């Protein structure tokens, strides 16, 4: 029954993939593709609406928004992706171990998650900025440090549930090595929620970076990122809507693409979705 559905799913997957590859290429090659420099100011072209010479218009200093978006993509995409990956990696392992081992270990590990949740993350972020300076690495580290805990909670909950299923209980009774049980049998079954969490982390990190720039940890001016562009654009929202529309639309389109790509990839990799179930 699902063939037509599957096809549209795959088509969207392909479109998304092409979009993301194009975006990545444009970001990496921003210095070739961008019609202007990210810090090139034109006093005669302040706050222009979108037009032929400036596709997305210009900002207060007469800088080309399209070019700044391209340069910003490099930073925002790498921050979004790496933060998502790092926090998912740490969170998954941590959560899986906690849920699988259970008992005292679980208790201690989860109490530590509560501690990390509760610590004032702004303080942490300011401290990191002071200690290791600014730029992509500091931002990455700061965001990853505070965001893996959500992943850990989700995975641990899933693992707790899956551990009670007959086939796991049976495998454990049969003396299968823990590593095999955990990575072969349990984690693949958490793929759905895990994927959602990863995809949610990407925009969360991109947007969090805009908050960071507000307190001084974000990318230093005159560099741009989507987060800072969105933040600046918001203040001008009522008067120069193009300054917010383009950053917001780009973040939206990118996340939409990641989402579709993720779902169609999962449909491919996990035939169980349409056919037989794997144990």
């Amino acid at each position, binding site marked *: 029954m*699902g063939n037509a*559905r599957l096809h549209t*799913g795959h088509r969207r997957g392909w479109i998304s993939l092409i979009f993301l590859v194009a975006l990545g290429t444009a970001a990496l090659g921003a210095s070739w593709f961008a019609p202007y420099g990210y810090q090139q100011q034109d006093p005669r072209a302040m706050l222009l609406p979108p037009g032929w010479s400036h596709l997305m218009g210009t900002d207060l200093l007469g800088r080309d928004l399209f070019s700044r978006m391209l340069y910003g993509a490099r930073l925002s995409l790498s921050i979004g992706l790496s933060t998502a990956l790092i926090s998912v990696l740490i969170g998954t392992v941590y959560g899986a171990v906690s849920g699988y081992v*259970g*008992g*005292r270990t*679980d*208790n201690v590990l*989860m*109490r530590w998650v*509560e*501690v990390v*949740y*509760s*610590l*004032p993350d*702004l*303080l*942490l972020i*300011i*401290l990191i900025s*002071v200690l290791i300076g600014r730029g992509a690495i500091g931002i990455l580290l700061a965001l990853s440090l505070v965001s893996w805990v*959500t992943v850990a*909670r*989700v995975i*641990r*909950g*899933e693992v*707790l*549930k899956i*551990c*009670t299923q007959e086939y796991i209980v049976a495998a454990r009774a049969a003396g299968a090595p823990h590593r095999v049980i955990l990575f072969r049998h349990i984690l693949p*079954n958490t*793929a*759905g*929620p895990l994927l*959602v*969490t990863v*995809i*949610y982390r990407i*925009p*969360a990190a991109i*947007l969090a970076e*805009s908050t960071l720039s507000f*307190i001084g940890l974000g990318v230093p001016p005159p560099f741009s990122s989507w987060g800072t562009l*969105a*933040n600046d654009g*918001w203040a001008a*929202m*009522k008067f120069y809507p193009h300054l*917010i529309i383009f950053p*917001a639309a780009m*973040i*939206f389109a*990118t*996340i*939409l693409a990641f*989402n579709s790509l993720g779902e169609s990839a999962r449909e491919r990799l996990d035939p169980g*979705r349409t056919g037989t*179930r794997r144990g």
Partner: protein
Amino acid sequence: MLPLVLRRLVSAIPTLFIVATLSFVLMRLVPGGPFDREKKLPPAIQANVERKYHLDEPVWKQYLLYMGSLARGDFGPSYKYLGRSVNDILREAFPVSLQLGLFSLVLSVLCGVGTGIVSAWRPGSWLDRGGGLFSVLGFSLPTFVLGSLLVFSLADSLHFFPPALWEGWRFTVLPVVTLSFAPAAFLARLCRASLLEVMEKDFVRTARAKGLRESRVILRHALKNALTPVVSVVGPLTAGLVTGSFVVETIFSLPGMGKHFVTAVTNRDYPLIMGVTLMYTVLIILANMIVDLLYGILDPRVRVE
């Protein structure tokens, strides 16, 4: 169930202690003090101020003093709002955030789980796609943009709702919707993914094979099992929502406690930082405890020790 609750309450004490200690250390490591101003104070005046708040004592002594008063339930005086105690500030701000947070929680869970169910019902249908689009929008639209969009459309142009302030229930609608949007979107995706996962399981297939209606299969059999990840997220989400949001409170000028999480840090108002942090910790601990209890209710075989 009761032993779990008791054990958690006991283990809350070391958790709180660790959070308080680490926060204290963090606060003092971060450069800049509460009385650093654009116009620098003459050293003698700076000394007067520091003496008043015991900031001239060695740090270990300040720590002991602080932990001592904390043990008595006293968060100390605010360094920014002179003459007000942190206890007073929290007492006044928390009810506002609690009210907003609970409304938002209900709204986001209803919308999120609802959308999730509708999407999982017929994956790939236009309803599912619509739900997907809504969710991605929810993920990727910054809260400040969403809030302002709502204000421009529903308050500024159409005059349906007041644009800001806190004078009655009509004033809660826009902030609650703004607060709920992103969590609802996240919950919707999570719920859908988890439901789809569960729908492939044997017991659901059995139920289907028995010829039960699809709606019954989903609501009676699959949903309960699929709610685990939702519940995992709802715990911390609740703690987050009821302690308020800096962005929403700023955009809508609400007297909640969310802004203190940011302004207390930027003001270096040490006692207030500590106050909001520990309050959040308590709520996180409570929320996680309830989540762990719910795991057991959703699936009686799951037992958290």
